[in-house]
């Protein structure tokens, strides 16, 4: 059974969720350790590459070009995949995608599926839909297995159980796999998972996967993985169903030469991940006899329509931004209330919700730019964050409700002040008057009211100097110096 899903529609706001996360010492330690390790590994393997910036630029152009010709490439993929024996389905939204997959699994004659880790299937909460239809999904990716057995939720795109340490994992395995004498060394845990899952790989008839890349030119699908469970699910079952967002398509086979260099180095800090599989349609002598691809929109076309935010779709799901983000590194992924967390989550999640939910996420950033620095396809995440903040403000200030928005009123008032030197100087004088009741004798303020109180929770504030710079400059001019 899956745990309560991370649902942006019902998740608490980021500041509230972050506060809870910050109180979890074990979580913070795990997140800090994991992101430190991956960042160090990434830095090492990127430093080896004299053409890293060239690869990033090509990666950006390939993805940008794809989105600008998305309809062409999706149709090309469909034609080529079909020609090779695959069956292509289209889904407008999550609900439609779930329905298609459930029907396909039923048609395959199996009431169990083995699954490869797929953020897309998490996004649409596929496991709940399968279970509701009497189908049992077995997660086979070690982290997803840990999440599933622990009735938990993923907190990182590439390493979903990053928030758990080996003792916590051992406890989950001990109970759920009935292994009371299980050791706590990492290899003990991996061995337990191997035995537990092998039985499923060899038996279960239907597999469900995501897709890292859909190759338009050939109709092929590419899956990038570390453990081998992907290869198991892609080759042993009789029926394979791949669920992919329409943003997963790439133009040509050759483009993989760029993306398969950018992705492993960015995601896990390896020169190449252990296993990458590419296959096209159906081969009666190799792999599943039936292969389906479900191409899903689920608000991606909305993102496509927003020119300034369109680059969000270029993401190749490496999670380097998460590892680099100083905010994510403090809170971990659950605080974002979505399977897509960290910087990419802050821009993707609210847009997938068509800006109706997760409005606090674009503000869950200090705009430090560390994410942009490491993004292998050069998504300017800070730019998109600012753009989405504008969208949130416009939504909140439209209509009658906007009239009462406290922040907007304050911002408008400040803008009026900045538009006039006279008003600005008057405001400076007013500030000195207003603060005098709360300033201490030593010239420091230790408490601020209302929204500003967030500052004085942990920081003092020096009281305003008696003379502003421009006052001093004027005085200097009068004294002829």
């Amino acid at each position: 059974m899956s745990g309560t899903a991370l649902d942006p529609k019902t998740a608490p706001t980021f500041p509230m969720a972050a506060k809870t996360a910050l109180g979890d010492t074990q979580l913070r330690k795990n997140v800090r350790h994991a992101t430190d390790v991956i960042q160090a590994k990434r830095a090492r393997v990127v430093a080896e590459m004299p053409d890293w910036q060239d690869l990033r630029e090509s990666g950006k152009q390939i993805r940008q070009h794809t989105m600008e010709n998305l309809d062409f490439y999706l149709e090309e993929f469909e034609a080529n995949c079909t020609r090779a024996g695959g069956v292509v389905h289209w889904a407008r939204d999550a609900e439609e995608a779930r329905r298609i997959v459930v029907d396909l699994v039923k048609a395959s004659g199996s009431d169990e599926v083995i699954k490869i880790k797929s953020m897309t299937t998490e996004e649409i909460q596929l496991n709940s839909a399968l279970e509701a239809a009497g189908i049992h999904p077995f997660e086979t990716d070690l982290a997803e297995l840990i999440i599933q057995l622990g009735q938990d939720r993923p907190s990182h795109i590439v390493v979903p159980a990053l928030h758990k340490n080996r003792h916590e994992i051992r406890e989950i395995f001990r109970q759920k796999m009935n292994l009371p004498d299980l050791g706590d060394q990492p290899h003990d845990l991996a061995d337990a998972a191997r035995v537990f899952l092998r039985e499923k790989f060899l038996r279960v008839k239907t597999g469900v996967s995501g897709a890292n890349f859909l190759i338009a030119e050939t109709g092929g699908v590419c899956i990038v993985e570390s453990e081998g469970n992907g290869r198991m699910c892609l080759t042993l079952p009789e029926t394979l169903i791949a669920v992919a967002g329409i943003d997963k398509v790439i133009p040509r086979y050759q483009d993989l030469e760029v993306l398969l260099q950018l992705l492993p180095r960015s995601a896990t800090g390896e020169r190449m991940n252990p296993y990458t599989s590419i296959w096209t349609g159906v081969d009666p002598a190799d792999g599943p006899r039936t292969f389906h691809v479900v191409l899903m929109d689920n608000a991606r076309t909305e993102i496509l329509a927003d020119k300034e935010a369109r680059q969000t779709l270029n993401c190749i799901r490496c999670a380097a931004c998460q590892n680099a983000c100083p905010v994510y590194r403090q809170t971990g992924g659950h605080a974002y209330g979505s399977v897509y967390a960290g910087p990419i989550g802050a821009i993707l999640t609210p847009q997938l919700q068509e800006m109706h939910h997760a409005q606090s996420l674009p503000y869950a950033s200090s705009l430090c730019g560390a994410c942009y620095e490491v993004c292998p396809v050069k998504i300017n995440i800070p730019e998109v964050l600012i753009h989405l903040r504008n969208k949130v403000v416009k939504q909140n200030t439209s209509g009658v409700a906007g009239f009462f928005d406290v922040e907007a009123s304050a911002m408008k008032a400040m803008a009026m002040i900045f538009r006039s030197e006279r008003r600005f100087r008057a405001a400076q004088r007013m500030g000195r008057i207003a603060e005098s009741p709360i300033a201490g004798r030593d010239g420091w303020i230790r408490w601020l009211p209302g929204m500003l109180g967030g500052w004085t929770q942990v920081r003092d504030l020096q009281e305003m100097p008696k003379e502003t710079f421009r006052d001093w400059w004027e005085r200097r001019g009068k004294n002829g110096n």
Partner: protein
Amino acid sequence: MATDPVTNSARTEVLRRIRAAKGGIATAETANAEWSAIDRTYRRQATRSREAILELLIDRLQDYDARVLESIHVNVRTAAAGMLKDRKANRMVIPAGLPAEWLPDGVQFVVDEHLPAMELDHVDGVMTAATLAIAETGTVLLQNVPGQGRRAATLVPDYHLCIVRAEDVVETVPEAFARLHPTARLATTFVSGPSATADIEMTRIKGVHGPRFLDVILVR
């Protein structure tokens, strides 16, 4: 051209949305022209010498704890005999089309003719050739062709003995893709080290699934 008539209306709708979002219909002409204009200033050729490339491959493979033997003064059969003996492998599965002269005596070789998965699970290992290897990343690449066989056979057994020819070793990933383009539709597997997971406190562990032991014979 809908492949699944049931989702035809979804297809129409999604394509309509895409075109509305972009403001137009993309055509093959413009797509191809724009694709060709993409800047590709990254390395696409080898920069090292042949010797250095082969040394690099061996180094990377050993980094992944694969054992590598260069067959210069011995033939493949002899090299294979030694490695199989070390691994105590007596019963190996092989794909159709693997050269008979590579197979040493004293080991049972079963040709994979749609062996059921359970059977694959009970052999000591699998022996194949390879399509190519990428030195920079320590990657061995397999495709479904004679001598390499179907994917399941190199996946389920716990041990893989792989014969790589020196002339099939390239330095960079782009060079590999240039060679692979004619066979782009074949089922292809990139293997870069025995399976690993970084999910338990970021410690790289070998062998969750897939062969935990990899031996490579590099044929000069």
